């Protein structure tokens, strides 16, 4: 029974056979955490199992006093009646899929993942399994990511245009993962210094300590009062848009790096001048590819509006269901805006 291995509960996704939770939303005795984003890694649990590659970020997120056991990708360990191992999901530094073997079944919980190359983390590893729990943040065929080099071309052209017009270029993106990926991609093409919002500083530092090569950065707060940011690249989390913090960047051209920028209306509604399609989630072809690669007999779809993906998978010969159908009472709906 699938539900011996996985059961949605109010605290989060629970494994009865191993007696642990994956990415619990509430404090629990034993947690396996797939990655360090705030909607997956929450403090307060007694014991955490995480991938070693992301230990620095996890400490940052879960606090210095949290009890954390870290495991190399592929290393096998026991939880109750199950054998566990963590495998790279290619989402952000240290992000993992959780492979659970027990009661004669192998289940893999993907966490968040992507199939596109990313210089800041180990690429997604297809893990053969019977039951695959997949995310579906971008579960419609309109989401197909452009090649990163084309996006970076576009971004560099934007920076040049801002330099010509002598205005700052303020790029909004999530502070964990997206910012570092862009800084690393840009490092191959430029050697400029990038100015960072305070919320990004320690996370960028954690990536540097993990050995990720990125452009040199400087805190905006450490710049001289009245510094002219014309022609400079400034990076900030989306929450800084429209805040008093932006006053320093009068007349700035603004951009947002996100998978949601694929749709014109989404960019226009948010009022950014430029949208750059960069996502740390799988696009539609990536979702289908992963379902094929793992060869699972049954697919559970989590994360927001997965209905189109489920129906498409069913119509193409897969046994696909919403995760919430797996008994239990938890809602698997997270605010997908957060997760990008």
């Amino acid at each position: 029974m699938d539900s011996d291995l996985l059961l949605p509960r109010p605290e989060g996704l629970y494994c009865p056979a191993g007696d642990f939770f994956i990415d619990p939303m509430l404090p629990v005795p034993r947690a396996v955490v797939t990655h360090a984003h705030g909607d997956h890694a929450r403090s307060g649990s007694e014991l955490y199992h995480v991938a070693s590659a992301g230990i620095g970020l996890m400490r940052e997120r879960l606090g210095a006093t949290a009890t954390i056991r870290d495991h190399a990708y592929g290393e096998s360990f026991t939880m109750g009646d199950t054998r566990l191992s963590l495998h790279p999901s290619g989402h952000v530094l240290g992000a993992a899929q959780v492979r659970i073997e027990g009661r004669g079944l192998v289940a893999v919980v993907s966490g968040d993942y992507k199939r596109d190359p990313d210089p800041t983390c180990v690429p997604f590893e297809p893990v053969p399994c019977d039951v695959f729990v997949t995310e579906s943040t971008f579960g419609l065929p309109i989401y197909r990511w452009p090649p990163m080099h084309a996006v970076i071309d576009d971004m560099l052209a934007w920076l040049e245009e801002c330099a010509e017009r002598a205005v700052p270029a303020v790029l909004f993106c999530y502070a964990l993962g997206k910012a570092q990926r862009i800084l690393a991609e840009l490092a191959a093409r430029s050697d400029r210094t990038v100015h960072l919002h305070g919320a990004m500083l320690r996370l960028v530092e954690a990536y540097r300590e993990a050995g990720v090569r990125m452009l040199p950065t400087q805190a905006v707060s450490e710049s001289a009062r009245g510094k002219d940011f014309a022609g400079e690249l400034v990076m900030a989390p989306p929450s800084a848009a429209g805040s008093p913090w932006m006053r320093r960047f009068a007349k700035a051209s603004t951009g947002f790096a996100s998978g949601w920028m694929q749709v014109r209306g989404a960019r226009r509604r948010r009022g950014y001048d430029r949208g750059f399609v960069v996502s740390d989630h799988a696009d539609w072809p990536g979702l289908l590819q992963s379902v094929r690669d793992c060869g699972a007999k049954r697919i559970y779809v989590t994360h927001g509006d997965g209905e189109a993906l489920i129906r498409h998978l069913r119509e193409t010969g897969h046994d696909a269901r919403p995760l919430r159908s797996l008994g239990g009472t938890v809602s698997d709906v997270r605010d997908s805006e957060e997760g990008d």
Partner: protein
Amino acid sequence: MRRFAVLFEALDRTASTSAKRDAMAAYFRNAPPEDAAWAVYVLGGGKLKRTATSTELRLALAAETGYADWLIDDCYAHVGDLAETVALMLPAPEETADDTPLHVWMETRLPSLGKLESIERMDVLRQWWHALPRDQLFLVNKLLTGSLRVGVSHRLVVQAIAQWSSLPTDLIAHRLTGTWKPGAAAFEALAGPERDDEHAGERPYPFFLASPLEHDVASLGESKDWLAEWKWDGIRAQLMRRDGGALIWSRGEERLDGRFPEIERAALELPDGCVLDGEILAWAFDSDKPLPFAALQKRIGKLKPGPKLLADTPVRLMVYDVLEFGGNDLREQPLHRRRATLEALVAGHGPTLMLSPAVTAEHWEALTTVRTESRERQTEGLMLKRLDSPYRVGRKRGDWWKWKVDPYTVDAVLLYAQPGHGRRSGLFTDYTFGVWDGDALVPVAKAYSGLDDDEIGRLDRWIRAHTVDRFGPVRSVEPTHVFELAFEAIQASGRHKAGVAVRFPRILRWRTDLAIRDADKLDDLRRLATG
């Protein structure tokens, strides 16, 4: 069309009107005039006659991608723009060199679709899709399915042409009114020197539009400096008596030839070389006030009204301004002089051309009292026009104010929602509201506007989490939230389930203080409809 695609992208990538104006002016300077002419046309909101249906586009897309119809519909509902959905779902072609000029698309290629059978039409569409880079593919689909909507108003296009040509904007606006036909010569003529015969022929004058009065009426100064008139609820129109004939233009700059024969006939009795501004109203012969707007609607749709309709629903032109007399442009004259000319002109012309009477009152306070009669008189309130003002172009604030009576309001319950379009794509922003009929809620109004972005976001999340049922893109929700709606009029209607139809409904506020049992009853609305 590569050059136009670059312009479109530049316009799409900035919210700054001056940057948009500069981008257009630069395009007009450099583009071949035969293409620039079409750019003026489509950026100003012009559309081609629809040559392919959205169903055909969806079918062609299904054939091209192999995806199920429901999945294409889901994508469309999510994107909120069919042209964009197509561009996003098709694979980007490897290397494409197609650079068919804009004017060839507009004059030859797109119109050629109209001559084909549906099946052939979809084949041609798919061939185009194969050959086009994504940005041009998007634009071709946009041009095929409707207007561009890139945050550029007609007025901004006019300003860009003025900037490029170094001519006054009012002159450009005038040159573009009426049936301006795109073409190289027409485009170059926009920038040509002013001629004596600018006002000849069939070209109407740009309309002067009033702004809503949002402050205290006393702030307008002395009431004796103002002309007050009723605000008529009809179709704004310009009546041109020129070259031995008569022509009616709507405010949307459409010719209304043949739709209102009684007005055209009456106009022939006016002296040649005059242009009047007024409002077309449905008006029964023996009545002292117009018929409701719903009556006029029966006439609007009819290209050639038959004798029964003409007899049952006669129309009049309520004239309130004269823009041209004796072939001379009067627009720079102060209103009181134009008004004197107008009064002399329409005197004795029977009821079909009727002078919009001045509403006189000693002072603002008295006028405020008179205004309360607006609804009884089948008007929307008062118009206030500064007596020494010229007839301006477009919506310029300061000289013409519309002082409408407060709208009707109703507390109604949210029943259905569907995703919006354009800027609101992917969000549930198109709402249907209902009121109580016994112990059932019946839909009475659809509204799209009135909430701020925060409220829209909150409601969107709530709708997703509380969907009870789905009908295509439409979701029905648990009746929970009450909204105060405003509307301008209410009429009995056989086409609506509730038996009434409201005009211009919009959301005033989210009544979080009310429970659904506090919402209004259908009977309350019915009472208003008979009033």
